[in-house]
């Protein structure tokens, strides 16, 4: 069915959400157009295309696009579609080309998408076909820009500038990069692709849902603690023992981490502390950081400790871990989550190895953490088919968010993250300029 703007607005109440937000394919199509088409979407990292001609392909929402570096070393984000019959131009996940060439009729394109060659031009003479007409190029996305190497694109010509859109949440991406002694990160160690049979928003809502870990992850925390208890006291320290047990932290610990929400739906939990705060520091890494930044700044960087940060709707990062997860919606009840890891330039290999261990322990298809989360999302997706109750609730600490101007702050177990996301959802979906959180909350 199709919905009026008023009907869509009515699906988001201050403390309730309508179940059709998660289950109706028509809503999903509107989300792709209005949220994914309206905001900035994470494309990739500059380190994935270091040389002219290097490219990666991906889906923006569910549209095929390619990120490529041209001969002037500028990065472009292009629709992955031939200007002739519409064939997808490049189909490998990554690679290197001197120019793009369509597999079907051999049309060729420069690295910025400009049509360069059409075979057998003779038949086009006198037909009105103009090879120099930009409509035949591989089309550029309306906007693309990067922040500290992270490339985003937007279909929306009127989107705010990337930096303005990120707002105060940019601090976390800064922290991720500043954790490198050289102030730069690069993609390393490959990607995990994990099919989720659920709506894309269920994954996002779990990021800063700190009422679930002690329930959902109790089994792996118990298993790890039971095993650790059997080990002799002088056993070698294991990173697993620092990574897994904090997922069973108490409500009080999670409450103390706090949640901070921003305009456009971004939010993070933690800051002064998080469940990653007590990780050991490799002494070689500490020396490299001290040499690069001095004692005060090193302490400042390493004690800024967030857990998950969401750049709504497509990217979530863990600055203290140096991994990111990228959201690729496929259908109303199907989403692919990609986990990428980063090397801190100038840091010892042990840091990347811990990042990869973390991704494997927590986010991998074969892990003992992610599959329990996914089971919960799957059950929600199934349960919301029920017509017994059209609404889900999100009351925790409602009316108590502290307004600090550019951000709202509340305890770690509050539903501030839900309020933040759905203020943005409602604004994008009703084709409004996304509202500041406080305005949305008052409405």
């Amino acid at each position, binding site marked *: 069915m199709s919905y009026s703007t008023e009907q869509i607005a009515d699906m988001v109440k201050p403390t309730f959400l309508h179940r059709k937000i998660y289950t109706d394919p028509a809503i999903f199509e509107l989300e792709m157009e209005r949220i994914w088409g309206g905001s900035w979407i994470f494309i990739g990292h500059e380190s994935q295309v270091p040389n002219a001609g290097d490219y990666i392909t991906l889906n923006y929402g569910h549209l095929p696009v390619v990120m490529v570096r041209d001969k002037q070393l500028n990065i472009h984000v292009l629709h992955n579609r031939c200007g002739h019959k519409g064939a997808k131009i490049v189909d490998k996940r990554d690679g290197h080309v001197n120019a793009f060439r369509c597999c079907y009729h051999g049309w060729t394109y420069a690295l910025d998408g400009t049509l360069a060659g059409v075979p057998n031009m003779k038949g086009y003479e006198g037909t009105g076909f103009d090879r120099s007409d930009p409509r035949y190029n591989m089309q550029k996305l309306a906007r693309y820009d990067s922040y500290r190497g992270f490339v985003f694109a937007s279909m929306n010509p009127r989107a705010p500038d990337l930096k303005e859109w990120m707002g105060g949440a940019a601090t976390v991406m800064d922290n991720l990069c500043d954790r490198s002694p050289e102030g730069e990160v690069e993609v390393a160690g490959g990607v995990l692709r994990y099919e989720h049979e659920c709506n894309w928003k269920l994954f996002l809502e779990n990021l800063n849902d700190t009422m679930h870990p002690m329930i959902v992850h*109790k089994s*792996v925390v118990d*298993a790890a603690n039971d095993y650790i208890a059997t080990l002799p006291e002088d056993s070698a320290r294991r990173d697993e023992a620092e990574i897994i047990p904090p997922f069973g932290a108490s409500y009080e610990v999670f409450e103390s981490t706090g949640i901070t929400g921003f305009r456009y739906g971004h939010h993070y939990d933690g800051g002064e502390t998080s469940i990653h705060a007590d990780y050991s520091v490799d002494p070689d890494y500490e020396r490299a950081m001290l040499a690069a930044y001095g004692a005060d700044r090193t302490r400042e960087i390493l004690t800024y400790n967030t857990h998950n940060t969401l750049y709504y709707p497509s990217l979530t990062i863990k600055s203290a871990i140096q991994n990111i997860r990228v959201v690729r919606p496929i259908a109303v009840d199907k989403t692919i989550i990609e986990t990428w890891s980063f090397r801190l330039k100038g840091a010892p290999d042990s840091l990347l190895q811990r990042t990869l261990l973390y991704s494997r322990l927590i986010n*991998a298809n074969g892990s003992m953490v992610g*599959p*329990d989360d996914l*089971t919960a999302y799957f*059950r929600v997706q199934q349960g919301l088919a029920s017509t017994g109750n059209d609404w889900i609730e999100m009351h925790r600490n409602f009316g108590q968010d502290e307004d600090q101007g550019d951000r709202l702050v509340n305890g770690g177990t509050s539903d501030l993250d839900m309020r933040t996301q759905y203020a943005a959802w409602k604004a994008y979906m009703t084709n409004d300029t996304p509202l500041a959180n406080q305005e949305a909350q008052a409405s």
Partner: protein
Amino acid sequence: MTNVITSNPTIRDIEELLYDEAAFLDKADLDGWIELYTDDGTYWMPVLPDQEDPVNHISLFYDDRVLMEIRRRNLKHPRAASKDYPIRCSHIISNIRVTEQVDEITTVESNFHCLVYYNDRQTTYGGTYRHELVRSDSGLKIRHKRVDLINCDAALNTIIIYL
């Protein structure tokens, strides 16, 4: 010092061990399964064909004894939501051949198909195994197992148990 091997395992010895392992996994019995591994045994499922490194590159699984022990306990935990559903597997192993025999280590490669029925869905996994087997006082044991899925780099759903 090089150990002198008086008798290398026969193909029948090797089949017996591989089939025993498959039988434990078919029943999702990790208590029995773990006993087939040496204390320094490892289980690896790369995410790339020809992946060389389990530590500096992401994998679907890379478990040593510590993680095997945690996984064994996790599987039986009453509050593991993803383990609420019965896990039933059927492994077929074939094309078994010894590819290397160095000192006490016998390297064996094989092909496998595995059906996993879990949460109302049957999934087919297939690919190759590489087992490194070692003779011990308690018989032939697995020191390392590498599982190369033919679709290891696809977007896979949860892999609920070792394959």
